[in-house]
């Protein structure tokens, strides 16, 4: 049977504000599934043209798929969000690139013709599900030296990446982190972020954490506007004595959820849905697990090659800031300045937070806003590093591009 690959578009994306994991965090008493349910509902509310019956799939990523992130959360979240029972769903996991993989996986199905429209997103409640909860690594990893022992500790892999790029100093990483906070604060001040946030009601019963009762979260909790180099200079380097990675130049431990609508371009246009980005290519790549932060580089190489593009064609970058060093390694590799204005214009995960499997869609949502504002840009990319030595990159085209006019 002859098939035609269909164009796939990013229709819309939303997220919950991100919270700090732990007992004092805003989401401490909020279930993970409720977070993603609220994101899905906001997505549907914002796109009334989409008949929920037509949704072909709900793909929800979570790294730790137990408890309120288990039970095939893609399916349960769909039901909890009020989608008809006829809409199926599944769970997906590629650690930090979970939501990104949810997007590419449903996008592949849309291109293939299996779906017209799907919801893809992710959730991670690192307060309820700390990193490494319930893991049981095969002892052969160590006994046969398949990976270095540091591979399971993301902070250590970041230190390892500093080793690989000796020119990336702690100062450069701290400077980058300060800029991320500044850009994020500015983006907030300019209203670039709030429009894609769904407010989340949160309950607190422990007075030790603040005012009790129901509250409403409307902004990212981890933000530290006004952070200075001096603030960062003396932070501990918990992953290595005299190391370079600190809580200040890395993303924190966070809670949050994202959701996006991915559709065939024809479906979107026929149903009056917005087309915010057009998918060009996506690629995943593996690297040595102990330098997982290197992952975006080979993944981007692959994605560019598939698209027949070069790095100079990319006008906007959304790079997940798991660690400043990992962004800087990417930039260094491509000869891009640390403060290049095409990169993470609204700041990144160092400011907003990084609830693992949810972050991919945040990158896309922000890139989509930037596309809209910058019609002179034709291509952008979203990329992230992934635990156990992987990278993930998606290249997007700006449907608002006016360059040819």
């Amino acid at each position, binding site marked *: 049977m002859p098939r035609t690959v269909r164009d796939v578009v990013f229709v819309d994306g939303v997220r919950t504000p991100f919270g700090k994991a732990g007992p004092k965090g805003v989401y401490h008493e909020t279930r993970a599934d409720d977070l993603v349910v*609220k994101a899905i509902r906001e997505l549907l509310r914002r796109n009334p043209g989409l008949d929920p019956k037509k949704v072909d799939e709900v793909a929800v990523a979570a790294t730790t798929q137990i408890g309120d992130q288990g039970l095939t959360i893609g399916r349960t979240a769909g039901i909890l969000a009020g989608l008809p029972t006829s809409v199926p769903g599944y769970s997906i996991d590629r650690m930090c690139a979970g939501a990104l993989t949810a997007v590419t996986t449903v996008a592949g199905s849309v291109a293939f013709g299996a779906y017209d429209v799907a919801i893809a997103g992710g959730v991670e409640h690192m307060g309820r599900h700390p990193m490494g909860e319930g893991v049981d690594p095969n002892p052969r990893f160590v006994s046969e030296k398949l990976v270095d022992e540091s591979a399971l500790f993301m902070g250590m892999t970041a230190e390892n990446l500093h080793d690989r790029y000796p020119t990336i100093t702690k100062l450069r990483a701290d400077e980058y982190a300060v800029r991320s906070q500044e850009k994020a604060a500015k983006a907030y001040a300019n209203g670039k972020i709030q429009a894609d946030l769904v407010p989340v*009601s949160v309950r607190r019963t422990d007075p030790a954490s603040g005012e009790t009762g129901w509250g*409403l979260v409307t902004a990212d909790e981890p933000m530290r506007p006004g952070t200075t180099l001096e603030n960062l200079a003396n932070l501990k380097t918990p992953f290595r004595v005299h190391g370079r990675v600190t809580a200040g130049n890395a993303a924190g431990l966070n809670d949050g959820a994202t959701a996006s609508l991915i559709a065939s371009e024809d479906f979107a246009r026929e149903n009056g849905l917005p087309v915010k980005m057009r998918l060009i290519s996506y690629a995943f790549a593996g690297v040595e697990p102990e330098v997982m932060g290197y992952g975006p580089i080979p993944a981007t190489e692959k994605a560019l090659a598939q698209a027949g593009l070069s790095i100079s064609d990319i006008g906007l970058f959304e790079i997940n800031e798991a660690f400043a060093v990992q962004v800087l390694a990417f930039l260094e590799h491509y000869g891009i300045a640390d403060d290049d204005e095409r990169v993470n214009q609204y700041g990144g995960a160092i400011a907003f937070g990084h609830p693992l499997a949810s972050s991919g869609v945040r990158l896309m949502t922000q890139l989509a806003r930037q596309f809209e504002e910058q019609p002179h840009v034709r291509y952008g990319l979203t990329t992230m590093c992934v635990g156990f030595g992987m990278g993930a990159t998606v290249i997007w085209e700006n449907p608002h591009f006016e360059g040819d006019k």
Partner: protein
Amino acid sequence: MSTTAELLKGAAELFPGEVVTQAHVRHFDLPLGAGRFALITLDNGHDHTKPTTLGPQSLANIDAAIDQVEKEAADGGIVGVGVTGKPFVFAVGADLKGVELLKRHEDAVAIGKGGHDVFKRLSTLAVPTFAYYNGAAMGGGVEIGLHCAYRTVSAAVPAFSLPEVFLGLVPGWGGCTLLPNLIGADKAVTVVIENSLNQNKQLKGGQVYDLGIADALFEGADFLEQSLVWTASVLKGEIAVERPAIDRGEGWDQAVARGRSIADSKVHGAAPAAYRALDIIAAAKDGDLQAGFDAEDQALADLIMSGELRAGLYAFNLVQKRGKRPAGAPDKNLARPVTKVGVVGAGLMASQLALLFVRRLEVPVVLTDIDQERVDKGVGYVHAEIDKLLLKDRINRDKANRLKALVTGVLDKAEGFADADFVIEAVFEEIGVKQQVFAEVEAVAPAHAILATNTSSLSVSEMASKLRHPERVVGFHFFNPVAVLPLLEIVRGERTDDASLATAFAVARKLKKTAVLVKDAPAFVVNRILTRFMGEIQNVIDEGTPVEVAEKAVEPLGLPMSPLVLLELVGPAIGLHVSETLHRAFPDRFTVSPNLKAVVEAGKRGFYVYDSGKPELDPEVAALLKQGDTVLTEEQVRDRVLDAVAQEIGLMLAEGVVAEAQDIDLCLITGAGWPFHLGGVTPYLDRAGVAERVNGKRFLEPGVASVPA
């Protein structure tokens, strides 16, 4: 210390056991840049199984929270104030345990005034106030919201009501006054009077919105978020809340009149609460809120100090608590599993039982009868009833298929009952027939199977006496209509063992019936009392009192229907049969009315004709009546009837028919529909002095269903 605080402090001292609700104040920024907001969360610190209630300390906490936000509002620190509840519960009203403890009218006034003083502050803050009905809201919970400027409600709210009139109170923290001023008198009458008196009917979230009580309706999944987004829009002026104009003219008076006719039809003037509520609703027409609140305080206090309310609370607790934990039931761990049920007989009663068992137990139910035609008819009836449930969307197609497949009929008891764990008979009320049936069942059923009888008047012990295993026979007396009346009298025969009895109670629980343990005594509880009651009415008629006088004599009790209408419902022939049975047992107290006999012999099924729309004595019946010449007044009739009832209950308690007077009342409420304001009947007999007059003592200690001494 403010007056309100003093008031509440005094009230709190009277109620040391209060489950205290906290009023948490939390601040945050509203969406859309609408500004800083203060949200009050009402939370008693327990999960949803213990809903938030409002006692004096709780009110004081709310008062303190309002102190805080009032100041912030005045200082310009906040743009609005909201009130919501803990998960699944908004607030379910005043803590009734505290009401039961009140002994003095002035303390009762303090409860009403305390609530008003706190709640009405929500309408005088410098910023708009919002209530977010997130979950169950009743009584005072609903009323907090009524004092706010705006309300939203969750579509997931399962229960929303002003149940005060149902219990014997008025909505006295603003409900009677504010609700008609918000949604008009007619809808207010529906909520305050009609729903309350209709077995405390609850509204769902959507209905709360449709009635106009809430200004916006949001789904449960993100109710609070959407309520707050809506709040932000209202505060920014992007949403204008418009409410339909209410009819303050004739419509208001008609609504109150409609309320009075509902009250008359339900309580026949016998319980004051509905009428007091209607008086306040009527007066609320002029929109004078403070006058309304004052009237509420007085009505509330009068009612709190009334016997009707105390009896109502007693009745409510009987149904809610004793009804769920039957007195005298054996250890439930002794119960044996019931995986298949046999029904002997396939007539109407047997078929109704089969339907009930299959719906609640969802196990195979097999009907037997003496010929195939009857069996087919019985099974056909059950299948048709299941189809009706399907048509009404009460069950889905799969469930209907499942239930229908579970109900079968056979002629051969050996085939039908060989693996049954529970066999109930509903054959002709004749001891020889029943003994024969049980002997046949015993021959084929497993040794452990319970043999249950639905007899209404025969001796369970006698029925069991000829069996090899009489210890497994229990009485299982349902009330007609089986699907409607909750009562199930479980009768312990002389030789019934604990395991069989425990199994019977376990089955009753699954059937969702209110089980009461009853001794094997003639006609058990409800039929004995009703028959004595009816017998006395018939006696006075036979002796010469006109039928209308006899009927009207007991109207002030507010029973669900008049004696002769009840007898029509039961069927004169059955009534006669039961009176004959009881006459044989207690010939000095239970008479057999010759007039009733004549009516039955004439083949009459009732006493009244309804051609004119109102019941009028059937001339054919009137022609049959042979009356003496002793004409009593209504009061004399009432005294005689009540004396008889009090005497009979006193004797039943002395005989140990049930454990306590509470069980008698529970039976009358759930098996005969006797009203809450009578407390069943013994609280009323105590308060009217009948118990003292007849038996020389009260049935219940003062304070149990009455104002404590």
